């Protein structure tokens, strides 16, 4: 085969790869773009859109969302529930994960398997027992109940993730810290915790996103409109006979933004090579 033909084949392969990436990118991004287009279309006109570009652009849907609907309240509820449940899951997960990683005790393996088993259950199968349990404890239709419900969703994986991150930190580092004057707790605080920071950021993001996106628990455990999270709020734009698509898409766009912000803030903490140079 001549060099020219080999070169031509390589160029064709590159073009094919680039084309594939563009098609996949469009497939992923188009729904988000279309959400933006509908959100910027005047109310009631989205069904008459004739091209992929909006004919008229308006921000009235966003104004309506925050003036005529309690979107701000729903967003705030979502932020409170997601932040609290992810923070508490993080605290719980890191403590348990650290203990399971560092302390040798009988039944540790069984605990890990049981924790993992809870993740195998679909949320739909635990929502009813949870509903009955919360009803008996007076936690239905309360923010505390929502937070607890979301912790039950996030904590098991948080424990596993935290254990994995602590396993990757050489035990000698904490040994060195304990010889250098630390107690087991202060060695955890000064050495293990800062080094696990990328992992903790990942756990926080996972917890925040899981809680933020939850619809099932939010719809089942909360009745009062003032306690709705944004996920429940968005669903309220869908009526029995007609749906306010423009308002719903404006709400969806607004709903997506905080998660992006949290990810952008936290992703700087997810850096590789945090342990480089510590041990050979």
């Amino acid at each position, binding site marked *: 085969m001549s060099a020219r033909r080999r070169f031509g084949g390589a160029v064709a392969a590159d073009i094919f790869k680039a084309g594939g990436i563009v098609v996949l990118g469009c497939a992923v991004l188009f729904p988000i773009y279309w959400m933006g287009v509908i959100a910027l279309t005047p109310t009631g006109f989205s069904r008459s859109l004739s091209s992929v570009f909006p004919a008229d652009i308006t921000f009235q849907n966003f104004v309506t969302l925050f003036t005529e609907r309690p979107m701000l309240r729903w967003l705030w509820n979502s932020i409170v529930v997601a932040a609290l449940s992810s923070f508490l899951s993080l605290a719980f997960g890191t403590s348990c994960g650290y203990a399971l990683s560092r302390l040798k005790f009988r039944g540790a393996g069984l605990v890990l398997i049981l924790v993992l088993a809870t993740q195998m259950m679909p949320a739909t199968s635990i929502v009813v027992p949870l509903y009955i349990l919360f009803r008996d404890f007076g936690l239905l239709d309360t923010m505390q109940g929502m937070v607890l419900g979301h912790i039950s969703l996030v904590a098991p994986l948080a424990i596993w993730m935290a254990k994995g991150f602590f396993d990757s930190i*050489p035990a*000698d*580092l904490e*040994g*060195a*810290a*304990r*010889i*250098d*004057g*630390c*107690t*087991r707790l*202060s060695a955890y605080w*000064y*050495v293990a915790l*800062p*080094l696990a920071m990328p992992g903790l950021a990942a756990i926080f993001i996972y917890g925040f996103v899981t809680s933020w996106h939850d619809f099932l628990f939010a719809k089942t455990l909360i009745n009062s409109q003032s306690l709705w999270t944004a996920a429940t709020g968005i669903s309220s734009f869908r009526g029995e006979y007609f749906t306010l698509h423009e308002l719903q898409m404006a709400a969806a766009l607004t709903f997506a933004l905080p998660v992006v912000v949290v990810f952008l803030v936290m992703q700087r903490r997810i850096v590789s*090579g*945090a*342990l*480089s*140079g*510590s*041990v*050979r």
Partner: protein
Amino acid sequence: MADVAFRGVEKSFGNVTVIHGVDIDIADGELVVFVGPSGCGKSTLLRMLAGLEENTGGEIAIGDDVVSGLPPKDRDIAMVFQNYALYPHMTVAENIGFPLRMQGMSAAERRERVVEAAGLLGLETYLERYPRELSGGQRQRVAVGRAIVRKPRAFLFDEPLSNLDAALRVQMRKEVKLLHRRLGATMIFVTHDQVEAMTLADRIVVLRAGRVEQIGTPDDIYRRPANSFVAGFIGSPPINLIAGTVEPRSGSAVLVPEEDPALAFPLPPQFDLAPGSRITLGIRPENLLLVPATAGSGLEGKVVFCENSGQESAVTLELGGLQLVASLWGDEPPVIGGRARLEIDPARMLLFDDADMRLEPARET
């Protein structure tokens, strides 16, 4: 500084006992090296002294204090780990100053002590760097700096040089020795490298399977090993060990090897050896004299292998069913496949009895 004592120390993991009643006394200011093959328990002993492992029997004392059961922070010791164990999120200065920070020392005083320790180790220009920005040797120096900055009662080194390349290891070995001389501190150094043990130690503790085989000066260990294990572990190339039976020949005793009864090694006359007794003869490669095959004396054999390191050649000679290694210094190594003779000086022989203990001569020559 303080002396250190292990008194009947035992360690078990479940039903498995890995340290069996170890007794070691280390004097104040002494540099003692624990040496032994992998799994002999040397690092476990050190970790028990540090408090990172609990002894399940016996007691460990530093100075007048029994420290068994105390957390590591209350033992006033410093330790350099095999893998450096530097805190990657802290700079060199923060790493070295960490023990002082834990003591609650003021930032100014801490800085002064850190600069002083860094000066001793040639790290002044690296204080603001992170461990990942340092070479292996520099990282090891930082680990040593973190140990010396707090002036502990004893320094523990857990195979600190094993991750370094050969040239750096020799340099760091010298630095540890100089540091010991300068600080006059009690140091306990763990290694599996017998050269490190021989060159560094005031005294060596040879361990095997959780038991002390011998404690002594490097010279003692090398020239007067307690048993054939110690004789075989210390020395490179390793000692030649020939097991056999004592037989009388022409008025004197000879050793007839098990592996080739046709051979006979004349034994030194100063030992009282009963005919028929089973012993092991040990002779170090440097005490075997390799002479040309044309020489009239010695045992003739075939050269089957030669390891030439430049200054020294380790020549393996096949004598019937036996293979013996002789060291040849300076001279050109013999041709592989050629013939040569070995002359053995009986005065340099080590003899071990049936119970594997070294035999002492019954009389002077």
